[in-house]
């Protein structure tokens, strides 16, 4: 296990370096720059601004300086909001995205796994068709449709939850549900497939023959094997949940990281793009490692030899 962690950690370093380099080059070669605006800026002011942010240096120097600062943990000030450090902005926005992500995942799991299990147990009956059709609808329905729909029902009509904002728990429900339902649908389908495969195994038949109760078969024998695909999916899903929340943030006016991630690219906010990309990359690497550990724990076959 320690070997797994160490080797993953060593692999992560070159991966992050490649990501940083590619992102750096891509931002610099994208047309337009951070100081382009509808009002033409006089050339001499543009030069001043560029020198202020070190953009007048040769690209290689900029790159070396960037890497040097990065190694010291300094992501620099945002180009778009220079009064704020990129790390400061990430530090304020990430907890919001994390809360949203965790809650969505909780929704996704508590809805998805039971639905998938029930569907698998009663294959080809209405108990299977109903949640599976709903989950297909959930996968197909984009969040910008589902979000306003939930707002319409729970906020405008029933008045239970506020339609936007991030002040307290009551604000958290609708966005988490919107984001979570999409993943719940995936999880339900994965659970169903995984469970069906496991339930067809010989050892389950043996357990049935021995007279084990359905409960026991389900939770003691089948669940671990049946949930393996779901667990593999959880790592990327969780990363997706906390990074892919731009639309949700925009619909529900949530001050999360997704907005910085997306608008930084539009604004050519070089430091912010690099900062958020590296942050998410690190997070995804970490989450994947976590999933591998979890899998190794559950499934002996997945343990490194």
């Amino acid at each position, binding site marked *: 296990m320690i070997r797994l962690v160490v080797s993953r950690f060593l692999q992560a370093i070159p991966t992050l370096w490649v990501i940083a380099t590619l992102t750096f080059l891509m931002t610099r070669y*994208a*047309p*337009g*720059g951070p100081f*382009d*605006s*509808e*009002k*033409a*800026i*006089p050339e*001499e*002011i543009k030069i*001043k*601004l560029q020198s*202020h942010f070190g953009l007048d240096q040769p690209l290689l120097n900029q790159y070396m300086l960037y890497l040097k600062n990065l190694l010291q943990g300094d992501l620099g*000030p945002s180009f*778009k*909001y*220079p*009064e*704020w450090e990129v790390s400061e*902005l990430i530090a*304020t*926005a990430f907890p919001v995205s994390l809360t949203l992500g965790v809650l969505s995942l909780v929704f996704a799991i508590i809805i998805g796994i039971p639905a998938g299990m*029930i569907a698998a*147990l*009663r294959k080809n009956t209405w*108990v299977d068709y109903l949640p599976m059709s709903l989950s297909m609808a959930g996968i197909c329905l984009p969040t910008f449709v589902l979000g*306003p729909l939930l*707002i319409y029902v*729970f*906020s*405008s009509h029933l*008045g*239970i*939850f*506020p*339609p*936007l*904002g*991030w002040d307290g*728990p*009551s604000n*958290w*429900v609708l966005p988490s549900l919107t984001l979570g339902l999409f993943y719940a649908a995936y999880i339900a389908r994965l659970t169903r497939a995984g469970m069906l495969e496991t339930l067809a195994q010989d050892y389950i038949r043996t357990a049935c023959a021995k007279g084990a109760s*359905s*409960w026991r078969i*389900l939770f003691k024998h089948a669940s671990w094997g049946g949930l393996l695909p779901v667990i593999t999916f959880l790592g990327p899903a969780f990363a997706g949940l906390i990074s892919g929340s731009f639309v949700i943030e*925009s*619909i*529900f*006016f949530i*001050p999360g990281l997704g*907005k*910085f991630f997306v608008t930084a690219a*539009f*604004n*050519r906010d070089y430091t912010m793009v690099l900062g958020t990309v590296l942050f998410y990359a690190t997070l995804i690497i970490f989450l994947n490692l976590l999933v591998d550990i979890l899998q190794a724990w559950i499934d002996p076959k997945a343990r490194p030899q």
Partner: protein
Amino acid sequence: MHLLKQILRSLNRTRFFSIGTLLLLFLGCSRPSNVETALEEKLLHFGLGAEPQHLDPHLATSVAAHNILSALLEGLVTEDPKDLKPRPGTAKSWDISKDGKTYVFNLRENAQWSNGDRVTAHDFVYSFRRMLNPNLGAQYASMLYPLKNALAYHQGEKSWQEANVGVKALDDHSLEITLENPIPYFLELLNHFSWFPVHRPTIEKFNAYEKIGTAWTKPNNFVGNGPFRLTKHHINSVIEVHKNEHYWDAKTVQLQGICFYPIEAAYTEERAYRSGFLHLTQSVSADRVDFLKEKYPDELHFEPYLGTYFYRFNLKNPPFDDRRVRQAFCLSIDRKKLVDKVLKGGQSPATTFTPPGTGGFHPTAGFRYDPDTAKGLLNSYLKEKGMDKLPPIELTYNTSEGHKKVAEALHGMWKETLGVEIHLLNMEWKVFLSTVANGEFSLARAGWIGDYIDPHTFLQMWRTGEGLNMTGWGNKNYDQALQKAETSNSVDERWKNFQTCEDLLAAEAPILPLYFYVHLTLRHPTVKGWYPTLLDHHPYKYVYLEKEEAE
């Protein structure tokens, strides 16, 4: 089925549902909305649109920044809430010399910064000097060019002393400003944030005199002289300001505070308004107008806005290097149809570049709809060039549903009248900006919002070689007329020369004006002291909240 029954049985249904209900009640216990609590708290909840890039008045560039800065700072004069005419601000009075070039402002002795320091004439000298300091790199520094010798100092040709820039503190409370030319709208100009003062000790404490991106603009650090002080700034979430008790006219200020929410998506903003989260929205999506007109007839406002939506021709390449083709394109557009059938948001057709009535200037219409003449002009061009028809033309615009709608409508009109094939090319904003600035377009969308209420803010754009011109058009007569208008002190003379400019624009057609903007907004009936103004400025000290009277 056996298993399912077992599971269901094992769940004590009553307990499950009662917990569920409790949880729902706990999470969703409905609180009174912002608008409901606002009457008591005297807090205005304001839809800001975008997050402002800077809160430093010398670096700010956006409308959002104006909305915040006009609460935090005050210039020499303020604005009348109804017509934006200058009213005494930090200066209680002023004297203007006969030639209109020298102003002496008498500052209030009781004008204070939010930390209790006195506001003096030296603060203004320091601020103007900072704004013009070439090392700061202020994008709006040219707003201060009307000051005598400001250009020489800003371009780094001379030092501050050598340049002798036209601003001087005669004593602590008298400020003398000398202008390059008499400018009839100079006092109005002073309400632009680039003319606002900054607190010298604060700037020095954060070493921000020539540095971008210091922490002086954060809450607790920001020292201003306006009716409100900055109390909270959570980026992309909220900016809060509260009443500044040190403000000289604090007794007029009725609001206890304003919360600005940078909600960019128009649909989200509308939902925020309808749920009582906001008193006012920054915008309204055009396709929601019909619905809102019906549901909120008294809360949806169409307000005039000093801006023109237009297209630029690129005169550097054929076919738009020929005046006839440009005119043919201009004459084929039925602007009334565009406004009534496509936009439907209360905009008015633009037959001039300057919106009529700007500062009292009413230009005669120059851009007409005349498809027959258009056809004739194009045919004469085609005949001369020995062509059957024009090659397809690329129309570049930045990606947006609204721009696309206009581009498609125009495509139809050109195709119908001139038989021209248009390729619509949409681009992401920054790519679009650099494409247009580099002259890599044939026909490109544009918009211009006036910075002050005078035709000059519009017509100066088309001076030969002006940074914003970008069409490649230049005309000596235009430049001369513009200069005459700039240096003249007589209203008639100025209007006459501005009219010459407008006539030349219509005759030469380097641009194609389409419509004048309107500001579409939702505003709650409890907001009082708020009037439609051309620049969408609303001096907050006159704004108050009052319960609606039951009819």
